[in-house]
């Protein structure tokens, strides 16, 4: 019933859009011999920060997920929903929020100052790791919480009637579950951190803390050495491709899925000590996640009225890029989801925006000025980056609908056209709305390719905000961050809501 031919055209298109820039990068770049000491240092730092970030994110996610799994309290489902928010939160907004809390002039430093202690130095490896944990602790928590909630209730009840103490339950039930789930969660976080660009750009604070992605940008912007950028892009390509291949082999939970509303009743955990312990973990995690957002809101409001016109113009460009990227993403995702297009979309996961951007730059340069195409290229790259997530949401639904209603449709002798437009698309409303929201928010907040291509005339909102930060115009930067936050979350909310409203389940 799924028209396979329909999938061939977008699949070829996606493959071409990804492979052509890659080929350009590989042709232009040199081999490993072309790597200088600074490049090796960037490679080492990339791996180091990714290892530390994933270990910390998953290590901290385990007690938080356990507390969420076994406690029921007011605001629990809201907190779990908020754990999904960092995924669509623009990186720069979070960075500015973290600076407001943990930076040299932040709340923590002010608090330390009261006791006569020196302010915190946030730039460097620990700053990068801090931001990565902020983004990935919630993701890891959701993945691991899923693992906890998949433990059959009877098993915990059996443990309860056997009067097993908490450590025995950990050895018998929770330990094996974590051995199954935690490596996959750590590898996801590791892979995400490998592609770190905006965080390293703003919090790295020097040559010692440069990631490969950042090095690509620097050889572009400062040296304009395209061959060197291409060599670095080859390195980044190999890094991410290897970890993406490993990812495909590991069992993964479904972090996006619903069903986190359940709690596990735990008779071994009713002691006051464990209650307090869990409360502390939940409070710490919530504070760590909410304080930076609160800081953005507080610091951003005063500057809103005096935002420079360039920021409003950038916001307009960003909206256009986000909507264009969303339309493109869905136009590619839908036919791919109906056919068997997942491998093509996974290509988007295996490469980084800056690698793709470098390749596109190399391809465009002989024919036109890449800078005039900054916005369309940004929209295109963003669409390709969102494609795997859109397919991840759409494909299982298409399969479920086909399995559930396919025989009925066949017995009614529905034409493929009627099947697609009368049955399939209306029933896909929810995942379509969710995918569109995700694509729009990710594109709205992205600071990646645009940093390579942009000229002073055409900046997106994240880029404009970065320029304000560089110029130490912190009040305007905070106001721009607030605007960006509202626009990103607003776009996600509108699309996701549109998919849900009146959807018959």
């Amino acid at each position: 019933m799924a028209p396979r031919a329909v999938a061939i055209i977008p699949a070829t298109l996606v493959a071409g859009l990804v492979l052509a820039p890659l080929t350009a990068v590989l042709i232009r770049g040199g081999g490993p011999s072309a790597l200088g000491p600074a490049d090796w240092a960037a490679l080492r730092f990339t791996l180091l920060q990714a290892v530390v970030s994933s270990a910390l994110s998953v290590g901290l996610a385990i007690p938080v997920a356990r507390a969420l799994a076994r406690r029921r309290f007011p605001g629990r489902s809201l907190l779990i929903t908020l754990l999904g928010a960092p995924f669509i939160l623009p990186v720069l907004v979070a960075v500015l929020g973290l600076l407001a809390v943990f930076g040299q002039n932040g709340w923590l430093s002010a608090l330390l100052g009261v006791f006569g202690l020196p302010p915190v130095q946030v730039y460097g490896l620990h700053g990068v790791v801090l931001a990565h944990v902020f983004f990935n602790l919630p993701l890891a928590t959701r993945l691991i919480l899923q693992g906890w909630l998949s433990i059959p209730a009877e098993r915990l009840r059996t443990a309860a009637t056997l009067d097993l103490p908490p450590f025995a339950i950990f050895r018998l039930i929770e330990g094996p579950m974590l051995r199954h789930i935690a490596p996959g969660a750590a590898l996801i976080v590791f892979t995400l951190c490998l592609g770190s660009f905006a965080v390293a750009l703003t919090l790295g604070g020097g040559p010692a803390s440069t990631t490969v992605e950042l090095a690509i940008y620097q050889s572009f912007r400062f040296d304009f050495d395209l061959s060197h950028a291409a060599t670095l892009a080859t390195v980044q390509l190999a890094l991410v491709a290897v970890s993406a291949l490993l990812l495909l082999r590991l069992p993964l939970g479904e972090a996006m899925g619903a069903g986190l509303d359940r709690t596990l009743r735990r008779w071994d955990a009713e002691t006051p000590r464990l209650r307090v312990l869990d409360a502390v973990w939940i409070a710490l995690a919530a504070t760590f996640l909410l304080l930076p957002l609160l800081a953005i809101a507080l610091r951003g409001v005063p500057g809103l009225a005096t935002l420079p016109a360039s920021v409003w113009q950038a916001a307009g460009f960003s909206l256009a890029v986000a909507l264009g990227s969303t339309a493109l993403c869905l136009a590619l995702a839908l036919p791919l989801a109906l056919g068997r297009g997942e491998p093509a979309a996974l290509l988007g996961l295996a490469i980084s925006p800056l690698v793709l951007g470098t390749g596109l730059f190399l391809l465009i340069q002989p024919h036109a000025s890449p800078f005039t195409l900054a916005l369309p290229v940004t929209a295109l790259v963003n669409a390709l980056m969102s494609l795997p997530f859109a397919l991840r949401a759409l494909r299982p639904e298409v399969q479920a609908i086909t399995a559930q209603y396919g025989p009925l449709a066949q017995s009614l002798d529905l034409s493929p056209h009627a099947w697609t437009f009368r049955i399939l698309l209306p029933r896909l409303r929810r995942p379509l709305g969710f995918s569109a929201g995700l694509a729009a928010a990710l594109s709205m907040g992205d600071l990646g390719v645009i940093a390579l291509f942009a000229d002073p005339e055409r900046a997106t909102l994240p880029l404009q905000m970065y320029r304000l930060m560089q110029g130490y115009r912190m009040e305007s930067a905070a106001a721009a961050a607030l605007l960006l936050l509202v626009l990103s979350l607003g776009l996600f909310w509108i699309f996701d809501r549109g998919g849900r409203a009146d959807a018959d389940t």
Partner: protein
Amino acid sequence: MLTLDRVIIRQGDFALSADLTLPKGAITAIIGPSGAGKSTLLSAIAGFLPVSGRIAWDGTDLGPLPPGKRPLAMLFQDNNLFPHLTAAQNVALALTHRARLTEAQRDKVTDALARTGLSGLEDRKPSQLSGGQQSRVALARVLLQDKPLLLLDEPFSALGPALKSEMLDLVATLARDTGQTVLMITHDPADARRIADHTLVVADGTASPPQPTKDLFANPPKALRTYLGTA
């Protein structure tokens, strides 16, 4: 003797009331339509659900006791065994939660497995055992838990008819040997007739007091007639 003194179990809109006494050392079957609250009743006795009223064993109020401190063992419909532990390790959980066993504990485990007909299968994991053998492992663990009350929430419902009868007979034999009081859910009247001395009906929000199984089926009350389809 298990006493349920004006017990009411509430779950959302659903409420089940029970005011009854179970004779000690006997096997009592619980029968009734699905959704009537049979499992809810067992869960409440085991301590998994809060209740109003009083549940007592031999005069001791069970209310303040967590599940693990109550004088009972329980088997569920599935997931009774840990899939990554061997038969012997699963059974040993009745004695200790430590991974290492003493010589005496090891002997007890071997003995319990022998009494349920599983000699020589100590080192098999559940996936390497048949459905009937898995049930026997669970029963061996219950045997070692050595609790005066055994609650069965249809643990044999996935087995074929012959195997199920065999397991019920094994339960009856073991319970008579140890003097254990058994409370078992079933949806098959034949199960009740086969091994239960008494049967109680759960229907319409009430768990009725148990009656001798023979008498009950000879002269079924209206709720039971409706369930059996003989109304």
